């Protein structure tokens, strides 16, 4: 559906996008990830024909974006970083305008109504866009991209400015849309990419640093098999006891979270499951296990690992987002 080959965009001597290539087949959802200024938006602007590349080609649905721009653009719905809204228009007249602009061949009224319902803006249909809140403007922007049922949707940070409920709503919507559209979306909210995308591309400083399925990425980069353990008891003794367990490589004391509750990080030798041993030890010593989970690298960590210039520094992961299917929480 989309074919990007050796895409490069230079501004003077700096390369905003540096030799990026990827393919996207129909119905796939691709997530674009990268720190600010990595070249995500530039890549998207080139894909949609807003900017031209310095070298390399982009083919959408078989049409080259530079050679057959009109046909290629007809296949694309684009929501830029800042939704392209005319503030002095009502939602209705704006969507009507977009409908004409895209030369859509669908039944006008029914189609626009359908899109409005999908993104939940039917009740503000007759209001001026400048009177809408940021979240609603974002939705109108999304509606604009959906007009004409384009085969490809390019969404640059589609959930910016939405409240958490709306974010989940939009995420589900994007998932639902993937049955009819091929979707590329970028986001700096990594959990969002993780939740919606089949495939993830990470770019940093214009270069493609990873292109894989989300779960493969975490597998590939989680070389240590570690456990996080929360318990109650005397720190030095617990540490020595854990250290003595077979298969345990290292034990790190992560601090006291609340009075009496202490957290340890354990890393095990590869291929060994130390969870049962830890459990038996804790029972024997009568140190209650308050929480124990094995962890893979989260996308956040992979992301930081790939994009930080200092590859060795891995900050401690956040506690909230790490429950992966593989190593669930252990109740106690």
């Amino acid at each position, binding site marked *: 559906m989309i074919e990007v080959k050796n895409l490069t965009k230079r501004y003077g001597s700096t390369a905003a996008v540096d030799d990026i290539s990827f393919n996207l087949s129909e119905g796939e959802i691709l997530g674009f990830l990268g720190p600010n200024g990595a070249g995500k938006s530039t890549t998207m602007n080139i894909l949609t024909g*807003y900017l031209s590349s310095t070298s390399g080609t982009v083919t959408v649905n078989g049409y080259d974006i530079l050679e057959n721009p009109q046909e290629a653009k007809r296949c694309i719905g684009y929501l830029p970083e800042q939704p392209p*809204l005319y503030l*002095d228009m009502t939602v209705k007249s704006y969507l009507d305008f977009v409908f004409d602009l895209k030369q859509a061949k669908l039944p006008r009224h029914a189609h626009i109504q359908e899109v409005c319902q999908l993104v939940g803006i039917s009740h503000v249909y007759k209001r001026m866009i400048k009177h809408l809140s940021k979240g609603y403007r974002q939705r109108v922007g999304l509606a604009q991209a959906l007009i004409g049922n384009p085969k490809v949707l390019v969404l640059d940070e589609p959930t910016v400015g939405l409240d958490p409920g709306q974010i989940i709503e939009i995420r589900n919507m994007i998932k639902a849309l993937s049955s009819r559209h091929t979707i590329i979306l970028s986001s700096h909210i990594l959990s969002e990419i993780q939740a919606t995308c089949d495939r993830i591309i990470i770019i940093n400083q214009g270069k493609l640093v990873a292109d894989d399925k989300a779960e493969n990425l975490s597998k590939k980069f989680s070389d240590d098999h570690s456990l996080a353990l929360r318990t109650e008891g005397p720190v030095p003794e617990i540490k020595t006891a854990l250290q003595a367990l077979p298969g345990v490589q290292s034990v790190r004391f992560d601090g006291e979270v609340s009075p009496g509750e202490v957290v340890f990080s354990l890393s095990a030798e590869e291929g060994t499951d130390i969870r049962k041993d830890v459990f038996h030890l804790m029972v024997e010593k009568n140190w209650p296990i308050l929480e124990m989970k094995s962890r893979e690298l989260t996308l956040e960590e992979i992301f930081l690992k790939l994009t930080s210039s200092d590859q060795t520094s891995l900050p401690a992961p956040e506690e909230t987002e790490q429950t992966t299917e593989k190593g669930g929480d252990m109740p106690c």
Partner: protein
Amino acid sequence: MLTILRRELNSYFTSAIGYIYLAVFYFFSGYFFQSVISINSTDLSSVFLSLFLVLMFIVPILTMRLMSEDMKLRTDQLLLTAPLSLSGLVYGKFLAALTLFAAGTGITLIYAVVLSAFQVMEWTVIVGNILGLLLLGAALISIGLFISSLTENQVIAAVGGFAVMLMLMIMDAIAGSVPVAFLSELLYKISFMTRYAPFTTGILNLSNVLYFLSVAVIFNFLTVRVLEKKRWS
């Protein structure tokens, strides 16, 4: 193109610009018209000649936001990623401004009709005058549009427009003060006033028609190039 034209026209009237433009135009043309009838004349030439000066000041108001607003609001991302050619975009905006301009010009037709109640009018002269005004407007609008495409700031676009229009207005004076004969002649040749004045006296010179038309086409072409360049820079 029609889509753009329709939106821009609507936009003139959802903001105050369209009304202000028409009000100013009607006020001044009305003022010039009353000075014609106050001397019991039916010769509208002086109205058209005076309007030349008014246009210089109000056309930039018409064109200042056409391109710069899109850049500011980032709606150019919508327009440039839509299946629409750049010239379609530019001419849509150009024609929208020209349509509003023509709506202003239309008032002179009413003056002529009013006067025709008192005396037989020379309609060919009137038509020539209106045509001249429209051609002048087209040329000025395309210049204003071009200036608007260079900046995302509407105020700069307006001020830049005023400056260029003022230059065009005093072109004759500049031409007179240039000591080099061939330069001075060249400036006279491209002076808008020299080209426009014959229309008001009832002379329809094809070269003048072509002059204004080519100015419009050239500046619209330049606007397209500016948009094109933005993608490649």
